[in-house]
């Protein structure tokens, strides 16, 4: 009897060990490119291209970072990016929570059909809408300003509406029903009852909207007429010269571009994962 138990324990332990090993290997595979990014940004170009691959720089250099900050107007790009990012986050939070609420907790004729249209717009390739939009923005004199990159954010985004709706549908009706019977107007219910308990999904929308505008390349490229308005995602193109890509500088730029997102993620991590968890699943 005793032997049998220990055999079982050994098998369980082995299985667990194996599981750890597999997961650990996967985790390593996921994290290694970052290790490469970080170490690469401290390498000289001859180190970087060394065959066989060098795990660590033979000589740490901060030169790449120095060049990133001096060769391009880094802080101006950062400022521009932040302006766009912040307005987009505000716009996304306000508009998508309202719209999501309208789809999730209020009944009106044709609602579910309209929601299907919302889903359908997720599939649209933006390349096709680019030229008509550009012509439209030119007519209202928006090209060359931040407006084309900011204003649409205030009118909802299909993916965020979807997230919001999924989350809000999951909140029990009873929570709002009594307030409604008491005659509270819908906006108050939305603002005072629903929003406070929607923090997770709001955090998710905030991060995702941050990332969308943080990494948007084509939008800034096409709509920002002046290089004084350029954003960080264009920095890579501005940093490489026409023939020489300057790889070591690009890696340093990569680190600088990933860091803010990581910081934001770790700050909001608890809410964020909760937000995705609670909204994505109930299809």
């Amino acid at each position, binding site marked *: 009897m005793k032997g049998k138990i220990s055999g079982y324990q050994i098998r369980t332990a082995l299985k667990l060990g194996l599981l750890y090993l597999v997961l650990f290997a996967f985790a390593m595979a996921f994290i290694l490119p970052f290790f490469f990014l970080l170490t690469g940004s401290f390498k000289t170009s001859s180190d970087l291209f060394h065959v066989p691959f060098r795990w660590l720089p033979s000589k740490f250099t901060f030169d790449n970072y120095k060049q990133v900050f001096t060769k391009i107007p880094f802080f101006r790009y950062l400022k521009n990016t932040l302006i766009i990012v912040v307005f987009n986050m505000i716009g996304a939070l306000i508009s998508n929570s309202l719209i999501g609420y309208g789809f999730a907790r209020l009944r009106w004729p044709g609602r579910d059909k309209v929601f299907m249209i919302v889903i359908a717009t997720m599939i649209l390739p933006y390349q096709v809408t680019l030229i008509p939009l550009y012509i439209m923005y030119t007519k209202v004199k928006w090209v060359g300003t931040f407006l084309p990159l900011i204003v649409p954010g205030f009118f909802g985004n299909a993916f965020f509406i979807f997230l919001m709706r999924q989350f809000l549908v999951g909140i029990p009706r009873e929570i709002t029903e009594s307030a409604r019977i008491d005659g509270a107007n819908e906006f108050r219910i939305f603002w005072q009852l629903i929003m406070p308990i929607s923090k997770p999904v709001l955090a998710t929308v905030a991060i995702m909207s941050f990332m969308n505008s943080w990494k948007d390349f084509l939008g800034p490229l096409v709509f920002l007429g002046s290089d004084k308005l350029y954003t960080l995602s264009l920095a890579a193109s*501005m940093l490489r010269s026409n023939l020489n890509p300057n790889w070591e500088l690009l890696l340093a730029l990569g680190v600088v571009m990933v860091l803010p997102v990581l910081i934001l993620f770790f700050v909001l991590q608890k809410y964020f994962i909760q937000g995705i968890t609670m909204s994505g699943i109930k299809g």
Partner: protein
Amino acid sequence: MKKRILTAAAVGCALFLTTGLTAMAETKTVHMGDREIEVEVTDIGKSGTFTYWSAFTGDSATWEQERVDAFNEAYADLGISVDVQYVPDGAGINNGKLLSAIAGGTAPDLLITDNPTSAYQYAAEGCFAPLDGILEDIELDVSDFYDGCKDVMYYDGTCYLVPQDTNVIMLYYRPDLAAEAGLDPDNPPTNVEELDAWADALTVQEDDGSYSRFGLIPWLDSGDDAFVLPFIFGADPYLADEGRIDLTSDQMVNYMTWIQSYAKKYDPEKINAFTSGLGGMFSPDHAFMTGKVAMTFTGNWFTEALRQYAPDVEYRVCPVPVPEGGRVKSSSFGCNVFAIPEGTSEEQAELAALYIKFCEQGSVNEDNFAQWRSIPVIDAAFDDVSLTKNGDEIYALEREIAASPENGIPALCAVSAELSTQFQNLRQTLIYNTDLDPAAELKTLEDQMNAML
């Protein structure tokens, strides 16, 4: 009465215009970077500011900014200045930015791009302003430009583009490896048979069938450009007189068959396993620098890459060897071209053209020439370049090649961008499918592209 006044006014205007347009040139000393250079300043009796999109980014942007500052300094007294924007990806010519701007009427007054093929297509589509009159007004004489450059300058007899400089393609080879393989480095190959013999002699295959070195990979570097090699090999992909695309000439079919013969000789998958350089030509792991290929076709700019990343590697250059019927000691030109988008007012266009004229000067281009070994678009201008004065051998060879009357820029037509892409695709398909017949495939593409014209 009324009529007479009008006539008088017209005469007055004409008088004013002629006097106003008589360009006056003077020489000035201005700063460019940390140097002082002599430049010519042309007074056309107008002043103002114009916008300019430059395709130069990164380190090249530093140079462009110096040039812009020099221009603004030179023209400050005349009240003329340029407002430069750096627009990546060839001044937005390939990524939708320029097209959107033209569609929306927000294009700049002037632009420079490193993609002459696409620029030509824009010109053919009517996106750029005709320049003949403007160039005459500001007295920029382009008649001495290399005939090869004129291919890209004129569409349908009208000038739309002006090259700032040009480049030539040569064969780079490693004399140390050649000597090792028992070849004479002083007598590089001059025709395709010799080239093939060199390629075979320089190729090193291991016992397990893998390769540790290739003599030549004909689709590496500039060999990867759509029409550079076919052109030097004698093909004319677009027949301007007949207005049709010709991909089935003997020269073209021979070229493609030749390319395929390399794919048959060496398994292309094996070639891939060690040739994909990260920076194209600008990384220390480039196969030529590491000795994994002994010969390669590329432009004069590669000397700068070698200087930066492989200063110890010994190399030499020679004209691209050609088959029978090829263009001997010749090259296709690769230019950076200026253009003035359609819709720019005449006044702005003339100011913009002054910048073009400014940039054509040897003193302004000197750094560009010295660093990249780019060459002027006029033969006489070579004399003033420091490389010529210093007796640089490669530069002398470039001048010799540039002087060939057979040079040109191939396949420029109203569908040139798509033609290049489709042709490159076809070549890759033939490389990876050696059982396909080049002649038949080329015919299919030719018909498809001609249908679009």
